[in-house]
Every structure is written in structure tokens, then in C-alpha cells.
């Protein structure tokens, strides 16, 4: 288990262990430039709280034992795509998402809790576009006391994401 507290982190990638999973981690009170969890697969609960995160990447991320993502500020857009696969609940509580939070083609067998967040540019967690790619909630979801839209139409989502991506690129100068 990797534990990071009160640290400045440039880039975080959880290493792959011998048994094919990624090293689980707890991150608290950190300022992080980039958390790269693409294709990560965790068999223990992941905790990220009280952090300022510039960018977090969640393409194909499996939180098999759940996720506690709370009291964070995220500056960049997020794409949580083709992930989830949680046997325990995934919760986003009291966070501020400064850009669009895209949930695309995720599969959540267990509960998803979204409470007390501020989605400044909104999210598409509950957007219905096509049953084949809409997020699937095997055990439902709890959505409460959030600011910002959680069912942004696909066209609007795409526009917001494109703008955010361009902005991000220009900031990074890549």
C-alpha cells in the first residue's frame, strides 16, 4: 500500500504488482499535478482526499474494492471511461470539479455515491445517449446536494470537453 500525505507530487502512477493488480494507495492533503490511473486495476480500496489535483486520468480504471474520493479540488477535465467494475461503492463526496467530469461507458456493479460536489462545468454521469454506451448502475446510485448538471446532453458535453482539452493543451504547451 502506497501512502502519500502532505506531499507535492508531480506525477503519480501506481506500479503494477506481481499478481496483475496495481499497487493500492491512499493520498491525503497532497498537491498533485497528474494522477495517471489509466488501465489501473485495484483490488483494494483507493482513498484520495483533501487534495488539490490538476489532472486525473481514469481511462479504463477498475476500482474493484471501491473508491473514496472526497474533499478534493480538481482543476482539469476528467474522463472516466470504460471503468468502474466496483464490487464496493464508489463515492465522490464534497469535491469541486473545475472543469467537465465525463463518465463514459462505465460499468458500476455496486453503488455510486455522488454527494455535496460542485460541478462547475457539469457532468454526464446520468446522461442518456445510447443504451450501449450509457453508464450502467448495477446497484443504483445516490445523488444528493450537488451543484451543477449531472445529465449534460452529449453535444454540450463534447463541446465542453473539447474546449477544456484545448485549454489544457495550451497550458501544458505540449
Amino acid at each position: 500500500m502506497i501512502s502519500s500525505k502532505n506531499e507535492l507530487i508531480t506525477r503519480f502512477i501506481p506500479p503494477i504488482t506481481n499478481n496483475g493488480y496495481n499497487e493500492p494507495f491512499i493520498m491525503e492533503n497532497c498537491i498533485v499535478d497528474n494522477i495517471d490511473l489509466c488501465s489501473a486495476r485495484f483490488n483494494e480500496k483507493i482513498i484520495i482526499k483533501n487534495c488539490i489535483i490538476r489532472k486525473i486520468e481514469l481511462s479504463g480504471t477498475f476500482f474493484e474494492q471501491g473508491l473514496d474520493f472526497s474533499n478534493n479540488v480538481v482543476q482539469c477535465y476528467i474522463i472516466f471511461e470504460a471503468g468502474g467494475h466496483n464490487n464496493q461503492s464508489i463515492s465522490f463526496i464534497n469535491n469541486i470539479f473545475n472543469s467537465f467530469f465525463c463518465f463514459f461507458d462505465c460499468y458500476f456493479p455496486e453503488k455510486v455515491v455522488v454527494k455535496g460536489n460542485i460541478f462547475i462545468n457539469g457532468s454526464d454521469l446520468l446522461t442518456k445517449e445510447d443504451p450501449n454506451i450509457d453508464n450502467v448502475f448495477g446497484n443504483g446510485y445516490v445523488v444528493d446536494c450537488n451543484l451543477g448538471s449531472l445529465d449534460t446532453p452529449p453535444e454540450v458535453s463534447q463541446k465542453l470537453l473539447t474546449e477544456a482539452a484545448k485549454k489544457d493543451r495550451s497550458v501544458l504547451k505540449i
Partner: protein
Amino acid sequence: MKKRFLFFLFVGLWAVIVNGHNDSLPALDKLADRLQRFGERIPQEKVFVHMDNTCYYLGDTIWFAAYTRQTNTDKPSKISRVLYAELWNHGGFLAGSFSGAFGSITSAAFLSVGNHQYFGDPYYTWKDYAYAAAFGGITGGVTNGLVSVAKGNNFWTGEAVAAGRSPFVFNNNPVTTDTKSLSIDFNSSEYHPDDNFIKHYNSHGRHADINLSSQEIQTRVKDEIVKCQLHLKVGNNSLRGTINGKPMTIQVNITSDGVVRSYNLYPGHSARTNLTNPIIPFDNLKW
């Protein structure tokens, strides 16, 4: 004033009549004749270069044949004797060169494509990569022993190549079926997308109509990604087409080193995950 005008008119008519008597050729034939004589006195050449492919992968051998023809007779030229070929990379640096005997018909040579890092630059597009420019030029000719080829023709586009050492550039569609120089990495030390793909792609039975095993589908998806590798850019890429007649999207996220961070296959097409990179089409696949 009138007298002066009549005088000049008379002189002009006289000149035309006298000249016409001396040379019975009409004006157009006269011009053609002059051009013919110019071609005989100062022969011009056209250079043609044939390539064995329209684009090349890193490390490929470029085979080409070149020949010159005289512009006035359109017959093989024997004026130029040396062929110089140079390979320039996208940054304008010389990556290889060749010089050899230039026969009247052909002279085959080869260069190796090198000094390219396709994934090293996020803004380095597939077109740039296809611009493995080859150059054909001939020296030893007619004007002060310098460049003899006033003009050449790009064999593919038919466009003229400017005088001197002007590289001509191929921007034909790249051949995407050749996977021998695979540079896409599905098994890096940091990401392992294969397991997650298998578990996710059919997580709620959405691909049940494709009558193939998960491994077989995965192999085909990976093959398709590799085929499109020249088009891929850093970040999320959407490959769109049809599989067995149904609209499908292959989503792939890669790093600047060509490492695949994640990939996914889903039915339909969505605009949501296609951000700044252009959509890459693929043909109707029969699985």
C-alpha cells in the same frame, strides 16, 4: 500627321509581305520550329522517379528507379550521368543520401528511412511521417556544368518540381496493412490494458452478436489499432467504422511513446470522447 501614319502603315505592310514570301510557315509552326531547334541546341530533360511504395515505416528500405527523357523527343536521355538522391526528415535534416550511375533507362538504388521518431512529438502527424521525402536530381548538364534538369515531374502528382535540389514530397495515403514495423506498445511496464479490455468490452452482453471469443475479438481490435498507428495521436483516439454492418468505435489512448494506456470497443459512435484528435475511419470489417 496623316502622311506619317500612311508612311508607317506602308512600311509595316511591306515588311509583313516580304517576310511572308521568305518564310512560308504559319506563325504557330514557326514557333514550334523555333522550340524544336532550341531543344536540339540546348536539350532539356525531364526526370521521373518511381517508388516502390507511397509511404514507409521506420527502418524500411526505399527502392526507387529513376530515368530521364528528353523533352523535345520524349526519348530516353543520355545527357545526365549521375543520379543524386537524398532523404530528408520532417525537420529538414538530411537523413541519407545516394549517388550513382544514371543509365539511359533506369538506375535502381535504395535508401533506408531513418532518423524518425513518430511518437516523439504530439503534434507530429501521420502526414509528417509519410513525408519521408525522396529526392531525385541530375547534375552534369548543359548550363555551365551545373544542374541540367530545369524541371522534373513528381511521378505521383504530376506537379512540376522546381529547378535545383527541390525535394518532392509524397502525401498519398499511407499503406496501413503493413504491421511489420509495429511500434505500438500494448505491454508497457506502467499500463496493462489487455485484462481490463477483456473484462469490460462485453460487460453487459453488448457484443454478443459477434460470434467470436473474447481473445479473438481482442486480437482483432489490437490489429486494427496497429493498422491505424500512423494516424494515432497522443491522448484519446476514436477509430470509427462498421463491424459486420453495425457502427462501432474503437477507442484508444496512447502516450507520446506509442504506449497504449487503454483501449475499448463499443457499439455506435459518440462525440463525447473525441476531443481534439481527428476521427480515424476504418473499413467495414467482417468478423
